[in-house]
């Protein structure tokens, strides 16, 4: 066969082979498509924005899940209608289901909703008070294990039941779940509470001594409309809620943990009231064991700015500043002592002293670890605070001044 002939034959041969393989592929393709490779269409998704956990009223040992499901079409209308509260269509609907454990409850939803819940976009876990008191570990376990939950979803403890929290209409954002989330993030401004997410929960649960702390959320009833407000923290022993910190105690707790970002400290200098704003704060926590006794030294450096002052005497003078700094130091000190007293009262190491000890004195730590509860109450704390005021706004003396 002359060279062209053989080449032509090879071409035909190759062409034929390609045809056969193409034929086979064609048969495989629909097979693969039809085999349904885990593709889920966007409009089939049941997007869950917030999950609330309450005790089931009928039989108490069940768990009642409240899932806040987004109705995407209504988002279009109600937002364009200026978010007027009068719009009939709400952009979400809360669906409840009760069962033995969380996973069964989640699957229970398929009776009520057309598809499996999609919890990848879940913003917040709201846990009712009774569930918190009964212990949250076994309820959160499913969510930690599921691959869809984001580790950055926040955990909030409702002072009443989660269902009510998730029902409060929000003026600003359309969905209550997002509203709760944004509220917690805003807490950084006045440091009365702190955003705690699933990752924090998992890592605190890992260490035997530190006890878990989560922000509390309350409903304020003003006239006919309700508001959500985040104040104070709930303290957990193992995974059961044992106590609450109010604002000042929370502030003290945040000082020790070094989580203060900004906030207000008001003091009275003589007859004048002064409010200073915390610009930045740094905490160093270190532990020592001196002849068998555990001493935690906390060193806090804080710089602030004079936000406002009453009266006419200008305090933004050199001498005035010194006085204010002393008073601020005193105020921080009493916040700290409040927090430490409450922690000792609840016998819960919310500050992570155990961890600090573990890190520096790992050998002695073996001995202390078992009876940490008793040891914690005997822990001595010495506190060292250094404050400085670095400014007083754009005016050098109050408008109504004496001269």
């Amino acid at each position, binding site marked *: 066969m002359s060279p062209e002939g053989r080449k032509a034959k090879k071409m035909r*041969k190759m062409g034929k082979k390609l045809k056969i393989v193409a034929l*086979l592929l064609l*048969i495989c393709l629909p097979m693969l498509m039809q085999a349904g490779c885990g593709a889920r269409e966007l409009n089939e998704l049941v997007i869950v924005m917030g999950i609330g956990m309450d005790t089931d009223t009928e039989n108490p040992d069940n768990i009642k899940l409240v899932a806040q499901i987004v109705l995407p079409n209504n988002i279009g209308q109600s937002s364009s209608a200026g978010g007027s509260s009068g719009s009939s269509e709400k952009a979400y609907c809360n669906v409840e289901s009760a069962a033995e454990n969380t996973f069964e409850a989640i699957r229970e939803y398929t009776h009520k909703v057309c598809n499996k819940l999609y919890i990848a976009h879940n913003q917040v876990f709201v846990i009712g008070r009774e569930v918190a008191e009964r212990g949250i570990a076994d309820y959160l376990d499913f969510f930690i294990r599921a691959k869809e939950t984001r580790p950055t979803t926040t955990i909030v403890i409702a002072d009443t039941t989660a269902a009510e929290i998730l029902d409060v209409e929000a003026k600003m954002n359309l969905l209550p779940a997002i509203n709760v989330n944004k509220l917690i993030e805003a807490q950084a401004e006045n440091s009365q509470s702190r955003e705690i997410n699933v990752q924090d929960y998992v890592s605190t649960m890992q260490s035997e001594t530190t006890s878990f702390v989560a922000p509390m959320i309350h409903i304020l009833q003003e006239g006919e409309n309700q508001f959500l407000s985040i104040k104070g923290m709930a303290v957990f022993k193992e995974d059961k809620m044992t106590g609450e910190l109010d604002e000042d105690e929370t502030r003290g707790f945040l000082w020790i943990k070094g989580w203060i970002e900004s906030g207000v400290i008001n003091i009275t200098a003589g007859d004048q009231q002064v409010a200073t704003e915390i610009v930045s704060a740094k905490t160093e926590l270190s532990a020592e064991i001196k002849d068998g006794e555990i001493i935690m030294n906390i060193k806090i450096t804080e710089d602030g700015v004079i936000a406002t002052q009453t009266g006419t005497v200008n305090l933004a003078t050199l001498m005035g500043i010194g006085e204010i700094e002393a008073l601020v130091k005193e105020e921080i000190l009493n916040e700290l002592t409040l927090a430490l007293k409450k922690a000792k009262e609840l016998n819960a190491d919310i500050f992570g002293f155990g961890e600090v000890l573990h890190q520096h004195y790992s050998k002695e730590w073996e001995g202390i670890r078992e009876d940490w509860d008793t040891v914690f109450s005997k822990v001595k704390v010495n506190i060292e605070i250094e404050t400085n005021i670095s400014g007083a706004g754009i005016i050098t003396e109050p408008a109504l001044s004496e001269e």
Partner: protein
Amino acid sequence: MIIVILAFSAMVVWQMPKLIKERRWRELKYFSIFLFVGFVLNVLLAMGVELPDPTKGIQIFFDTIKLHY
């Protein structure tokens, strides 16, 4: 099951004619042996037959000589 048959027939169509034309008998022989072994195993697997697990074999072997952690 059908995927297995389809996949293996695609393999045959793709490789076999080339080997025959270039008269590489040795490669063709071993190709068909390995292909047959793969085919049989796959078919058994597709039919859900519980095949012996090689790692279990290794484990038992190492257990007997007590060398594992």
